């Protein structure tokens, strides 16, 4: 009784500040944000060292890491819908690519008359196709704030419309996964068309400037890398706010027992729609930061296989922790960079094998396994019992 008494006392007045503060400052968040910050700053500092130094990190590595960070943001967005709400999206590559195309269009317009054909307005590929004028949907993309708006609006709108129909018709489980695959596949075919006005199978490339600064300069490269790290941190905080709110509890409830949530009076479709759209926007931002760092965006980014790969990152890292998704994206992509150079033929087998192993032996992913190991080494009775319980609770879905 006395115990219950003190518990209520601590909670007498609802405080938003405590919600926001704990999303920023609880132990998990501090570790994650601290790690992102420390790594980002270290990389940039090491890049400043003279090239002769053994610790010098070359600029191309900075951009490579920046690319990984974009993937981590993408994985985070997938974990938000899949890990917390049970929506297994196999189409998040499409949202990523749409954000990328919005950024790509801005970068194309930044080229101005410096294209191969020297046309004052039209990008090279349009001149090549004998187009007379800029299609209407390219208007405004020379204006940076508008392009940035489109980075979130385009994927957000697609997710909203798609989710509106899918969630209201109560399409769930494997059927939903299949139609998300169909969505990204259809977009891939569409973007391959030259008539679409997005550069066909070559996509958008040969970028020169970003906001008037040379994209190839070390400064812009570092700046893009830091922006990716900042986006990852902000994306993490955002997801953490959602998942630690009561809405986060509703999302998990929907994941665990959707119809129970309905019979409690929750409009499941709107929750799914919200979280799916939010997640798509986050994926779009990741794509927008990815494009200037890799220098190209083409319809290949819509390939169904890419979306499946993202899910594998999350599963491997550990689903439903947020930081698990980040770990998964980084580990798999670093391994991929190594393997595709060292043993290009076996990469896909390796990835497939890894996925099978994780599903069979590590249902909670890398971070789950690490957590359990540390837990059983140091854990108090209570801690390990709870962890075991969590493992049981999550293993069945």
């Amino acid at each position: 009784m006395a115990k219950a008494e003190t518990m209520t006392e601590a909670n007498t007045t609802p405080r938003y500040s405590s919600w926001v503060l704990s999303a920023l400052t609880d132990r998990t968040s501090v570790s994650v944000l601290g790690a992102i910050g420390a790594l980002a700053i270290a990389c940039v500092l090491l890049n400043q060292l003279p090239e002769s130094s053994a610790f010098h990190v070359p600029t191309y590595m900075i951009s490579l890491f920046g690319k990984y960070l974009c993937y981590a943001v993408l994985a985070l967005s997938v974990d938000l819908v899949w890990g917390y709400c049970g929506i297994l999206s196999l189409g998040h590559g499409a949202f990523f690519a749409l954000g990328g195309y919005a950024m790509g269009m801005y970068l194309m317009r930044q080229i101005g008359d410096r294209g191969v054909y020297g046309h004052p307005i039209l990008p090279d590929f349009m001149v090549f196709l004998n187009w007379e004028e800029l299609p209407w949907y390219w208007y405004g993309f020379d204006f940076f704030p508008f392009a940035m708006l489109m980075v979130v609006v385009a994927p957000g709108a697609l997710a909203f419309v798609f989710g509106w129909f899918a969630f209201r018709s109560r399409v769930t489980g494997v059927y939903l996964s299949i139609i998300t695959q169909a969505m990204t596949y259809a977009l891939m075919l569409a973007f391959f068309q030259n008539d679409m006005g997005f550069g066909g199978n070559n996509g958008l490339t040969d970028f020169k400037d970003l906001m008037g600064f040379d994209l190839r300069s070390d400064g812009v490269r570092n700046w893009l890398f830091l922006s990716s790290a900042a986006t990852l941190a902000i994306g993490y905080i955002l997801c953490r706010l959602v998942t630690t709110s009561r809405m986060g509890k509703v999302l998990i409830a929907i994941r665990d027992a959707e119809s129970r949530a309905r019979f409690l009076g929750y409009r499941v479709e709107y929750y799914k729609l919200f979280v799916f759209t939010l997640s798509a926007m986050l994926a779009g931002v990741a794509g927008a930061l990815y494009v200037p760092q890799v220098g190209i965006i083409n319809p290949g980014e819509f390939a169904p296989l890419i979306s499946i790969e993202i899910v594998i990152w999350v599963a491997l890292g550990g689903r439903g922790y947020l930081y698990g998704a980040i770990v998964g994206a980084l580990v798999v992509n670093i391994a991929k960079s190594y393997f595709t150079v060292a043993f290009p033929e076996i990469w896909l087998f390796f990835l497939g094998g890894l996925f099978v192993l994780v599903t069979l032996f590590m249902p909670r992913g890398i971070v789950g396994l690490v957590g359990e190991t540390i837990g059983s080494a140091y854990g108090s009775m209570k801690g390990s019992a709870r962890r075991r319980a969590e493992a049981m609770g999550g293993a069945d879905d």
Partner: protein
Amino acid sequence: MTNRKGVTPHEAAKVADGSMLYLDGVTVSFDGFKALNSLSMIIKPGEMRAIIGPNGAGKTTMMDVITGKTRPDLGDVLFDGGVDLTKHDEAAIASMGIGRKFQKPTVFESHSVYDNLILALKQNRTARATLFAMTGKADEDRINELLELTRLTAQRDLLAANLSHGQKQWLEIGMLLAQDPRLLLVDEPAAGMTDAETAETAVLLKEIAKSHSVVVVEHDMDFVRDLDVRVTVLHEGSVLAEGTLDQVSSNDRVIEVYLGR
């Protein structure tokens, strides 16, 4: 929707005046098989009613119809004297004040007992409201009350997955109460419980019935006897008999249905 006698919902509403729940001529078929066959029943405000009947009699289907999960082919389903439940979905019906406990205990396994109750608490259920929802003192007090009532105070922070079967049933009843519904539909609350738990569940339900309308589906005759309320016997989707437990259990047709199988 009109029922078999061609009575419009409007006219039916007059008949339904003053009832908590009014079913008239409700028919549900699955591929031609009638799970409910012109089922009619009236529950008065504050009443507790026990529904018995052999497996497959249509008891769960009846709850599906009331809670918006299944649309009837025919018939009227009116709540609170006039609200046509066939026009609303599960979430809307739950918000009107109809709570349901499933036959198979269904709680949110990866949430703690406390969080399960938080989610069930009567509150604004929109996505925007829950994103910014804070747990106040009143909510805490209510949850502590419910924990006490369902004897789960010691399990407050335990994950629901780790509860015993009986405790899950109780948690689900606690969640029902947290919604503060006007009508509770309780599907086989004693299933899988020990005799002692079953007896305690009957006490709990009778306590609840003091301030709510309750419909309880149950197989266990001792349990129904403990409840000591009016009993409706369902058979092949319609009402076979209605009355006190003693009346219905001496009814020849009821005996035939129960002993004949």
